[in-house]
């Protein structure tokens, strides 16, 4: 008896219309005069907070200005220079231990001006449970990594090799109750993006 796989594939083959050529869409995409400003505006519109910083050294100073950071007890950071970091994601054997994480600071690889999204990939020091379990998320993003739109983004990011990567655009949110926007559904209650340089 043929397997379900064979049955489905042969049904799809016999049902398929004449093969069409693969389209190469041209002339699509967004272009903005000032990428950093556009990106910052987009982050604000999706419920996040974006701060443009001039140099990396001021990271701790910028973080201290936020009450969710200054009051945090458990902080994980994948970015150097975060003084309060006291949880090492790489050390955590069971991701469930991260349930009471207050703040998670992550390094964004790329920002997208059209939608305020930041691309993050789970590296060796992964344990992405911490990203989503943390009450608050901070994304540190090099200013020169901001691109105009998703078309450009997919040319640059690594979303082909094994692992996990995600575009994060603002905090966890929902409008499932009478369409009232509520920030802080199940995941992080805030999303702060610090653009460096």
């Amino acid at each position, binding site marked *: 008896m043929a397997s379900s796989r064979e049955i489905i594939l042969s049904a799809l*083959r016999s049902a398929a219309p004449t093969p069409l050529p693969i389209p190469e869409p041209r002339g699509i995409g967004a272009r903005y005069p000032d990428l950093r400003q556009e990106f910052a505006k987009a982050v604000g519109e999706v419920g996040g907070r974006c701060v443009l910083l001039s140099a990396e050294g001021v990271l701790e100073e910028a973080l201290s200005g936020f009450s969710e950071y200054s009051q945090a007890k458990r902080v994980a950071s994948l970015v150097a220079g975060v003084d309060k970091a006291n949880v090492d994601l790489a050390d955590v054997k069971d991701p469930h231990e991260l349930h009471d994480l207050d703040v998670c600071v992550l390094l964004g690889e790329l920002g997208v001006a059209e939608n305020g999204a930041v691309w993050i990939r789970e590296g060796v020091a992964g344990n992405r449970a911490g990203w989503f379990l943390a009450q608050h998320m901070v994304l540190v993003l090099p200013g020169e990594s901001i691109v105009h739109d998703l078309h450009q983004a997919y040319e640059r990011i690594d979303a082909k090799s094994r692992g996990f990567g995600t575009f994060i655009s603002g905090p966890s949110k929902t409008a*499932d*109750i009478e369409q009232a926007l509520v920030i802080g559904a199940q995941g992080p209650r805030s999303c702060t993006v610090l653009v460096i340089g």
Partner: protein
Amino acid sequence: MSSTRALRQAASGTAETSRPAAREQAPTGAGATRSRPHEHAHKAAAFVANDARLHWHDQAIWFLRGKRDRVSSAVPDWEQLRSAGEQIKAHTLSRLAEYLEQFERNAIQLGARVHWAKDAEEHNRIVHGLLAERGVQRVVKSKSMLTEECHLNPYLEERGIEVVDTDLGERIVQLRREPPSHIVMPAVHLKKEEIGELFHQQLGSEEGLSDPKVLTEIARQHLRQKFLAAQATISGVNFAIAETGGFVVCTNEGNADLGTSLPPLHIACMGVEKVVPRLKDLAVFLRLLARSATGQPITSYTSHFLGPRRGAELHVVIVDHGRSGILRREEYRRSLHCIRCGACMNTCPVYRRSGGHSYGVTVPGPIGSVLAPHINPAAHSSLPFASTLCGSCSDVCPVKVDLHHQLLVWRGELGRAGLLPLSKRVASKLGGWILARTWAYRFFGRLGRWLLARVPRAVIYNRWNAWGRQRELPAPPRESFREIYRRRRGQ
């Protein structure tokens, strides 16, 4: 016509294995004229009876359409994007088997296991088998219309497995033991006071709460406990990428991410039409999806899964469940382009005023009305008529599904298969006869205008005239268009 024959066979009672509820509601005879509880209009009656609520629902949904308009019109290349989306989908469907094989090959390469299910039953059996083999008793699920379509939850619950839907709207309707009424906003038919009462009853929260912020916080605490306690997670798939073997899941709440980053088993369920050829194709669909759905530029989380987490298992279940049959039918093929954004229901004047539950299927609105008759034409024969054919659904569709055209094609097909009630058959025959004869058209037009202005109310507003229910007919004009035109040209 072979398709008509197939329909007749289906109508005589063989189809529909996955929807026991719909089977119960199927008509006993195709010509039944009275009490047709499976019909859209019948199911909408209770919803329509509450006028204030109907208008509240109408406005709430229209608000989404407005947001979609504002955001999409701010994208200068919107129409080119729609064309690109349509072309990529059409191309993919023309080589679907190839792309699925490529996806499977690459997914296995990344360490995932791939399963194939012909129908809902096999899908449910595979998922249950994976859970049972590992002794799983507590599962969290992020939103997946496919698992709703397959009725996976009751299947697993009957076998002693707790399934918790983790999308807030889905959790709300799950606690109410009812299906979602919208594919993007499952609880859009409910008022915040009702949700407060539900949480009081089911989650033990204080009585009389109605602030969405407070209610969302209660759900947050409840669901985070469920995430931490889960032994496995089930997710849907928004897009599977043939080129990489990975797939993408989009959520605003982060529930798919919380769900998949904790337990050691992730089962992702996808329909065969979810595959796209290349990674770069995602840019086109992701720019269209959230803008069309909720007026957001992108969802909060757009997660790319390429193989299992370290120390965990990843299984992908690829499901046909009638899709190859739709692919075979040229006139309906484009409905497989659908990326489940919900824009067609948000704009639909019938959906907005009748509510999602009136459709009696997992996917309501225009897209649901063209998909459902494939599964069971007899049970869903009224759905293609739950439309004014205004065409707004086709206009807003981000991948250019010709929805209103397909609704019209279905009407003809269901009529030829003898699946329409007597009232519709007689009215269509009579209408067709009149419209085909100029003299009859003019005569009955004049007669109608004369009669409508003179007959007593009871002749028009009675139980036999559906057009007189819940509405006042407009005053008949004194002259026809033709008469006005003649008169003006003569001046």
